[in-house]
């Protein structure tokens, strides 16, 4: 099973159960050690008691006759101690006295006490081996064994109980953990349920950020931020579609009206040719504008889909600017506007890599925009600068400030600062036709600039204050 796909509840329950098992096993181990040590302590205490008794009896026997009476005394002293066996070995290793049949693993004692633990086929023992030297008797080795099987039995039971308890506790903890987790995750489910409710048509709704636990708060905040971005994109897309429809509707309705009027009028004679020609010219202008708009839209759509290939050519911004000045000079001069270039780049500023044609187009759009919005007698400045490996080019023109609320949307498709200009281009065109066919760009110039710059990994900015508007491209 893939652990990553396990539900959060199941995962937490398992973790709780595992923790419980680990804690209980640890605790059990500690208790077991303590009990075991206690048993050993108890056994040694008892054995040592008997050892000193045997020693006393042996050592206090004044003579051989008294020594011969010691076994009987020992028998008496050991009555009622069935699980205890005392064996005394003579110096030659023979059994001098024994109270049972247990075989000792060792018969000869050293100078110090020797604690032993061993087991035979049926039982387990703990014992001690000690030497004793009396004034008038040969060297004895005293061995005392205690049957500790009952301890072992106790420990086995203890372990079994512990195992059972642990299992039970694990199951119980898992169950409780499951319940607790479910209860704990309820806010998350609530948030998910609320998120499910939000549809494309209700993108304005937000999840309540204040009524959720702190851990989910960041999630809710991120989700809300995503919603805001989505809403924004949706809004733009909606506006975009309606803009396209609107932009196309006006010229098409013009064309239709014009054609119908012409068909109705049925011009005759000398003027007819001229009249019809006039209508065709007028239509051609509309067609050209629509064709241009479609081409621009396709270009932006390609850019939006990441299909623009920017190439790896080196582009010299200053020579591009000069080429554009060369192109626009006459036009600007007619409008009484001077074009000026200022190169503030560091001596070893890196060249810009990209598509020369596209960058030239972007710059051209900025220049056209600047020249159009500059009053007679002023200068449009193009400034190149470099800082920390970045190149920037700015196009600056004096002119009335653009209100701050328009600035972020200037690069949107079809966005126009003056809405009255937006839907009323036909009349304006008639007025200015002879002067400048183009004071009515489709509102796509700056959108194209942005597409090109973004495709080159750059960014666009616009600042407008103190009677000066500056568009800046940073790469």
């Amino acid at each position: 099973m893939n652990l990553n796909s396990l539900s959060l509840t199941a995962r937490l329950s398992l973790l709780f159960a595992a923790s419980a098992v680990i804690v209980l096993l640890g605790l059990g181990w500690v208790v077991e050690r303590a009990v075991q040590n206690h048993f050993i302590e108890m056994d040694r205490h008892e054995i040592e008691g008997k050892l000193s008794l045997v020693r006393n009896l042996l050592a206090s026997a004044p003579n051989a006759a008294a020594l011969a009476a010691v076994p009987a005394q020992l028998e008496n002293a050991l009555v009622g101690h069935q699980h205890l066996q005392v064996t005394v070995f003579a110096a030659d290793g023979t059994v001098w006295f024994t109270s049972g049949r247990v075989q000792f693993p060792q018969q000869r004692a050293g100078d110090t006490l020797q604690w032993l633990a061993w087991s035979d086929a049926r039982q387990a023992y703990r014992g001690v081996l000690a030497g004793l030297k009396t004034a008038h008797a040969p060297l004895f080795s005293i061995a005392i064994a205690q049957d500790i099987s009952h301890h072992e039995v106790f420990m086995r039971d203890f372990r079994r109980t512990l195992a059972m308890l642990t299992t039970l506790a694990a199951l119980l903890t898992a169950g409780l953990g499951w319940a607790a987790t479910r209860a704990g995750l309820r806010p998350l489910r609530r948030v998910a349920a609320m998120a499910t409710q939000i549809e494309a048509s209700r993108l304005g709704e937000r999840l309540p950020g204040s009524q959720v636990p702190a851990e989910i708060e960041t999630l809710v905040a991120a989700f809300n931020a995503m919603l805001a971005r989505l809403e924004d994109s949706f809004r733009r897309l909606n506006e975009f579609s309606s803009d396209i429809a609107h932009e196309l509707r006006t010229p098409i309705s013009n064309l239709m009206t014009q054609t119908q009027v012409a068909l109705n009028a049925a011009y005759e004679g000398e003027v007819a040719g001229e009249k019809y020609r006039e209508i065709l010219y007028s239509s051609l202008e509309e067609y050209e504008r629509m064709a241009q708009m479609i081409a621009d839209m396709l270009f932006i759509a390609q850019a939006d889909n990441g299909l623009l290939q920017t190439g790896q050519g080196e582009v010299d911004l200053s020579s591009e600017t000069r080429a554009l000045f060369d192109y626009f000079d006459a036009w600007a001069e007619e409008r009484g506007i001077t074009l000026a270039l200022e190169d503030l780049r560091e001596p070893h500023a890196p060249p810009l890599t990209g598509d020369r044609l596209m960058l030239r187009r972007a710059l051209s759009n900025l220049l056209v925009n600047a020249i159009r919005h500059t009053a007679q007698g002023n200068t449009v400045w193009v400034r190149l600068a470099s800082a920390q490996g970045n190149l920037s080019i700015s196009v600056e023109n004096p002119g009335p400030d653009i209100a701050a609320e328009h600035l972020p949307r200037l690069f949107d498709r079809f966005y126009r600062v003056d809405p009255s200009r937006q839907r009323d281009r036909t009349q304006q065109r008639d007025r200015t036709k002879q002067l400048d066919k183009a004071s009515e760009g489709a509102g796509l110039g700056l959108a194209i600039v942005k597409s090109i710059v973004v495709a080159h990994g750059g960014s666009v900015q616009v600042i407008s204050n103190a009677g000066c508007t500056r568009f800046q491209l940073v790469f």
Partner: protein
Amino acid sequence: MKILIIEDEPKTGDYLKQGLTEAGMVVDLARDGWDGLHLACNIEAGKQAYDLLILDVMLPGLDGWQVLEGVRRAGMSMPVLFLTARDQVADRVKGLELGADDYLVKPFAFIELLARVRSLLRRGKSSIEPTVLKVADLELDLLSRRALRAGKRIDLTAKEFTLLELLLRRQGEVLPRTLIASQVWDMNFDSDTNVVEVAVRRLRAKVDDGFEPKLIQTVRGMGYRLEAPAPAPVSAAQPP
């Protein structure tokens, strides 16, 4: 000049044929790829039947690419101009790799097509490059870069000289604004301004003001033409 158009869209095909015929060319029209390929490989009087192929990329049956491949495989070397509705870089590259000579993206201006067709037809006609271009009493010396009108020296800027040279080299042809912007300033996009108009107006002031006949003509809705108006159509020449 014989041209073959391979275009399946009926209206487009008809208009192209009509337009090019009216421009003085002999035009055949094929409606699909197989007919087109078949016709394009015709041999007449020991040489290729057509001097130019205008090829739509999206064709039923055999598409434009395949026709182009077939034509080249048959050893036909006439120039090919392809028309495409999709302006994708990959498409252009593919067409040029397959041996097309030029392309136009739909929708295009007819005058643009005409200019390109003429340019392609002229290609390969190796004539000795003249060093002096002349029309009526206007003279352009390409080596000394001097312009004379009625024997009088005209002062031109470098770009004005280039513009006049273009108009002279292609005298009699209507040159669309986009073509002028591209050839003179290397601006291969529509700047949505009347820059070219301004430049032509200035050139005209230097070349035509005070002289007769007026040589530089505006063809409304299409572009500009330089021509000695021997029997000039009245409607073609208009004041700026």
